[in-house]
């Protein structure tokens, strides 16, 4: 039976599976759905960050808007006591276990939200323009390596800026189609950009 | 007062319109009145008129801080209907609707009350349930309201998009045929003229800054920017400023003020025969007799007296209109303005006595008091004259917020416009 059972793990379905989009000369804009990973919502007091860092195996930054990203793990500080942790699928269980061990000394809430959202990678010289079709942030003021929760038209997103012309956003599953359609609709403008 | 009529119009035209009299006089305040009404909106002016006409009380002043009719009376989308859910509300609004039907003739001023029918769209199964509930209740209350299928709704309002693939498809609609719109400004002018003709003083540019009470607590007059004016009775009918003025008398009222915006398109030939409301997408629309589409938005979430509002709300409203009526996208917006609506916790008005002897309150009409104008005026006059509420406004007390006997049209998910 367990053979049959394990098959299912590979049969996952994501709203944006394999989605890709490019537009404009250059191209101005490239978008693709990001691969799956483990995601955790971590809530704890700032004083516990050292412990949490230990459990996660990578620095968890203390200031809202900061993001630490090294190798394959990323930690985003979204609120005064809220972090989003991204890690490879394979580390999900070990991370959970390490945090569980700490709950006595450092109260926290670690909730597995791996399946809650999907990621979209957006890059190119037009990336910021396309986001600004629906995002009210001044994206030039968002530093490279920064992150924030914000809004894109009618959808809440978590926005990361890994590079100058590179953004990654996280959107809750059921909003993903909307966000993708919105961005690609805006991206189509590059096909005719008339200045 | 010169009676308005077609022959009068011709006669005056022959005289180059030289001798049309003032529609309302511009008196100086007297030192004392029997009744002072604070706020020369449609409601306050209506109350003054009915006090004079029906109760013989003519030593009355209506005190207005700006130009009369310049509050929400000047800025509303003028929708009139009475198909409210609860019997208390239905009675109240239907009383007003009845008065609207004879108003132009009664006060000899054409307020262009147009009973072109009000459609309210249902976009979800839940909406359908709510609207059916309204129809049943209205029928038993003797208020006209009927259910239309999407096709019937489209026949009644041809620009309506009833495609089932719309993001918010039209699943049906209620229609109140007696509902419609009126020329909002004219209502204020009409009541002002009719009240003034019966001896009421209308004091514009006269803001109330304090309410003065005698030792025994009874009111004795108002402080204004034009000096103290004595009064035996004071009625506050100041819509957005109700709570500020009631505070002057030491009475706290459960009213908060929020911005509400509206807009008109450029004028076009008749293209929209009726009034359409959609609560689900927050937009409502009709076409004025002059030709512009008159469109209303939803209220903002924050307290404000700014008579303005943010752009994103207008974007939302206009996109909702374009969803429901896709042929309108290329029309242009001509003007967008805001009002300040006075909202109570149960979205029903407060109309009656207050804990202060001689002080009456008419307020909290929120997004939907224009339709009540004649009724509110009529009932307020009654309440002032007899120092007790008329049975129709008896349920609309201040006390209900303490006891919990709310008249919750909002919970019943009715649009209040």
């Amino acid at each position, binding site marked *: 039976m367990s053979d049959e059972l394990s098959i299912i793990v590979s049969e*996952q379905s994501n709203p944006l599976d394999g989605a890709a989009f490019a537009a404009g000369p250059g191209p101005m804009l490239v978008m693709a759905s990001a691969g799956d990973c483990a995601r955790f919502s971590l809530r704890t007091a700032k004083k516990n960050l050292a412990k949490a860092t230990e459990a996660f195996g990578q620095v968890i930054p203390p200031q809202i808007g900061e993001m630490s990203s090294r190798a394959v793990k990323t930690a985003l500080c979204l609120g005064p006591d809220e972090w989003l942790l991204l890690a490879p699928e394979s580390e999900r269980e070990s991370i959970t276990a390490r945090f569980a061990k700490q709950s006595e000394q450092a109260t926290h809430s670690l909730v597995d939200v791996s399946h809650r959202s999907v990621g979209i990678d957006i890059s190119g010289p037009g990336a910021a323009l396309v986001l600004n079709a629906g995002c009210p942030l001044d994206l030039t003021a968002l530093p490279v390596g920064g992150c924030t929760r914000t809004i894109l038209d009618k959808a809440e997103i978590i926005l990361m800026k890994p590079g100058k012309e590179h953004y990654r956003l996280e959107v809750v599953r059921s909003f993903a189609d909307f966000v993708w359609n919105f961005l690609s609709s805006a991206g189509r403008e590059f096909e005719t950009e008339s200045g | 007062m010169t009676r*308005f009529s077609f022959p009068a119009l011709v006669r005056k035209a022959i005289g180059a319109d030289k001798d049309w009299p003032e529609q309302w006089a511009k008196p100086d305040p007297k030192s004392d009145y029997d009744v002072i009404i604070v706020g020369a909106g449609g409601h306050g002016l209506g109350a003054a008129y009915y006090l004079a006409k029906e109760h013989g009380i003519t030593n009355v002043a209506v005190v207005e801080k700006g130009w009369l009719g310049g509050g929400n009376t000047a800025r509303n989308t003028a929708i009139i209907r009475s198909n409210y859910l609860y019997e208390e509300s239905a009675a109240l609004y239907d009383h007003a609707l009845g008065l609207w039907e004879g108003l132009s003739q009664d006060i000899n001023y054409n307020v262009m009350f147009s009973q072109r029918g009000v459609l309210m769209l249902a976009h979800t199964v839940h909406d359908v349930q709510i609207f059916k509930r309204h129809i*049943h209740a209205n029928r038993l209350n003797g208020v006209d309201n009927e259910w239309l299928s999407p096709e019937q709704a489209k026949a009644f309002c041809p620009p309506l998009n009833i495609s089932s693939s719309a993001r918010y498809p039209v699943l049906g609609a209620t229609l109140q045929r007696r509902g419609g719109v009126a020329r909002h400004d004219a209502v204020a002018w009409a009541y002002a003229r009719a009240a003034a003709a019966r001896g009421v003083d209308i004091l514009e540019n006269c803001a109330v800054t304090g309410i003065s009470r005698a030792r025994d607590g009874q009111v004795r007059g108002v402080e204004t920017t034009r000096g103290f004016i004595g009064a035996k009775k004071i009625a506050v009918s100041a819509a957005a400023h109700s709570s500020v003025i009631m505070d002057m008398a030491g009475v706290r009222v459960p009213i908060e003020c929020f911005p509400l915006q509206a807009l008109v398109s450029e004028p076009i030939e008749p293209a929209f025969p009726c009034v359409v409301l959609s609560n689900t997408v927050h937009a409502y629309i009709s076409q004025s007799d002059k030709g512009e589409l008159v469109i209303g938005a939803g209220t903002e979430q924050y307290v404000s007296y700014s008579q303005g509002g943010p752009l994103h709300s207008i*974007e939302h409203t206009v996109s909702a209109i374009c969803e429901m009526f896709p042929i309108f996208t290329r029309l242009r917006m001509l003007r967008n303005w805001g009002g300040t609506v006075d909202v109570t916790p149960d979205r029903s008005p407060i109309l009656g006595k207050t804990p202060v002897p001689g002080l009456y309150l008419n307020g909290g009409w929120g997004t939907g008091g224009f339709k009540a104008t004649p009724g509110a005026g009529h009932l307020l006059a009654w309440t002032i004259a007899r120092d007790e509420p008329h049975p129709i406004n008896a349920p609309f007390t201040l006390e209900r917020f303490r006891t919990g006997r709310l008249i919750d049209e909002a919970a019943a998910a009715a649009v209040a416009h």
Partner: protein
Amino acid sequence: MSSFRTAKGGRIKRKDAISFSFEGKAYTGVKGDTLASALLANGVHFVGRSYKYHRPRGIMSAGQEESSALVGIDRGQGRYDTNTRATTQELFEGLKAQSQHCWPSLRWDIGEMNSLASPILSAGFYYKTFMWPKSFWKRVYEPIIRKSAGLGRAPRAVDPDVYASRYAHCDVLIVGGGPAGLAAALAASRSGAKVILADEQSEIGGALLSDPGSRIDDEESWSWLASAVVALAADENVTILNRTTAFGYYHQNFVGLVERLSDHLESPSSNLPRERLWRVRAKRIVLATGAIERPLVFAGNDRPGVMLAGAARTYLNRYGVRVGDKPVVVTSHDSAYLTAFDMAENGVGVEAIIDLCTDVSPELLKGAARLGIEVLPGHTITRTKGRLRISSIYAAPIEPDGSVGPERTIDCDALLMCGGWTPSVHLFSQSRGTLSWREDIGAYVPDVYAQNASSAGACDGHYLLSEALNGGAAAGQAAAIEAGYKAGKPNTYEVAEEATCSGTLIVELPTGANPARIKAFVDFQHDVTAKDIRLAVREGFHSIEHIKRYTTAGMATDQGKTSNLSELAIASKTLSRPIAEVGLTTFRPPYTPTSFGAFAGRSRGNLFDVTRKSPIDSWAEKRGAVFEPVSLWRRARYFPRDNEDMHAAVARECKATRSSIGISDASTLGKIEVVGPDSAEFLNRIYTNAWTKLGVGRCRYGLMLGEDGFIFDDGVVGRLALDRFHVTTTTGGAPRVMAHMEDYLQTEWPDLDLWLTSITEQWAVIALNGPNVRKLIEPFVEGIDLDKQAFPHMAIKEGKIYGVPTRLFRVSFTGELGFEINVPSRYGLTVWKRLIEEGARYDIVPYGTEALHVLRAEKGYIIVGQDTDGTQTPDDVGMAWAIGRNKHDFIGKRSLTRPDMLVSNRKQLVGLLTRDPKNLLEEGAQIVATAHPSPPAKMIGHVTSSYWSETLQHSIAMGVVEGGRARMGAELYVPMPDGVHQVQVVEPVFYDQEGGRLNV
């Protein structure tokens, strides 16, 4: 080349001919033309009809202030634009324009008869008549009034164009690209500040575009302009937006602009949006919006051929068009002389300059003499002649006593007027700045700023080119500094031989005729005349706001751009009150009419709102489910087979569930993970129920109230660990509940140690109900003993199903043995498909929300929002048992003891059975106590839920009834359109009262 095109000059491309049509007649223009300039080049002035009197009207201006020359433009395929100003529409190949508001044709218009009745059509006439006989209003008068209304043709087809939008941030936003705006942009850009320069015209340049003769720093103005634009375009920190109107100035320097991307193109590419809404937040704003020329008010000032003098100059210098061959100029301001001089220099025989002022500057007189133009200082125009085009005017001297001397006729084919200039303070005023009246220039100018902005040039009351340039440069520099940049000294510009620029504000031109009998237009579109304004004042409309609303002056599509000041001046004079005291009406957005499409942007069709879909939605769609929207979600309502209707499908789905297995997608339920040592205490306060004693591995139905004591939401809560709960909410209530909980946690009880995490979308939820469910899943579940004792009703456990992690709930909303399988969302679809496959042997049937509603109603379970409407307490719906009586407090508790919560006749939830079991009540039907109610009837309740129960073979209903529980067994009545139905009040549980089917 058409007859009125000049031989040379202008900014048009003479070689690029463009054909277009107006009123079906073909014409030729050239590239760079507007529709108006092309028509004028062809000698066409008469293009429209006015609103009320249907008077023939021509082209009055050369810009967006135009209120007469409005046309319809049809580009086919639903691209029909009504009320388009000929003066701003750029010409493109094949443009087709039509006149509006006339029938059968522009030339022969029946509506012109209105002019005959004009004496009685004075301001507000309709308020005074059409009242008798009463029934005529609805049947006769109003239809006629409505029919005659409106200006443009209504659109008939759906617009295929798309609209875009964009947020942008900048250091300095400059509105207006005339000399002031350009100089500001140059100065700001030099500092490195991020600058946006927007101008609504096709080309940047403003007044310079009409003024090739001026010299800036010893350079020809057009060459200066070209280098300025090149310099700005080269700076990557500068964004130049032409064809972009700033329409609204909102809070904290937030400005809405619309960029028109394709209206000037012959065949735009389909990906090119027609317009783009820019939402700009600027640190600092420089307003350089210029000034608008004012018409003069006199009898017959509206004939085709009467035009603003500045416009005529624009047509000449910018478009190479003579607006006439023998124009007359009438003015109260120096600037009109420039028009006359430029025209004369281009070989046009200017018949005369009628100057209302007596003391004309010697230089201007000299200039006129040099060009052979007769100047009549101290003269007025008393009337004009010409039906479809002006043919002559009557000029007369103004005597020292103000009376008018003998008239003299002057033939002409154009009359160019100038009553001075009105600074464009619209945006400033929208920003809530206050204006002050400047008597010397007869205009309102910005005074106190409410936001971080400044003004420069003509919009600030500085009309000289040198002032515009130097004021603009200073404003640009200051703005950059304000925005935090270092800016060197601004440039100073020198303008050679600058013309004088002064005038007098003339309210109404002196006339010998009775002013009460003449039509001297103030608002040209709405046909508001000077006498209308006087009538309004006479009738007691003293506030300018009243005058506006009574006469409709300033309410036309130009929003009073050319009329407000005349209106104000006439009112002031009639009221004998200074203009400054009379004040202005409120400036509101949009600055110029702005398309709905631009506001709607991309929010159309499937982007109008989010449609949330569950992980299993695609399966349901393939299976042909009929969906219903529930908040933002779409949920499968039923799964019809072979053309079944809803009724049949639901009956089948219910039956299958009760007899074997039904499967449904419950993924949309809200879910919140509550973690932390104080979780149970938190839930104690949030819910009516008590949570402390709930064992790990158990669940409980929870009821949540608002602080007002009324039911707010409900759902099942499972305890995963001492400090970890899995909370579920209704689908529609999920965001509201999360916000409510966060609010109390953060602001009322910050001392509690716990956190809330939304996990709605982490888990797909598959609800399985029916007697065979356990049998179906048992083989595939790992780590959970499904045995009745080990895993009883209302239990929760973590384990695996098909090898993927699950949080398995044993709960039931149907009264059958039920499990809710939570699996991480990405597995939801696969698990669902497996269950469907494996379930085939039990005839598993997917059911939708409708069957779900029937099944739960058979059990008397409520749906918050359907059986409750925000006015029910727990006791009202028979759920007093859910209240933890010993709890000190919970949200809403206090409200339950308010006097009106304790009265005996509150509406209570009951079951209702129709006398005829086949009869189905309508949801929302009202309940009365008498068999023959007549309006207004006393209603004692209403039907909240009503269904056909296939299982019970009779209809069932629930409703709320005053004092309902005391009426058990009583007969009541439900009036419906088809008659009054008799019903019996019963317990609201219709099926398996003992709950035997649950506990198996």
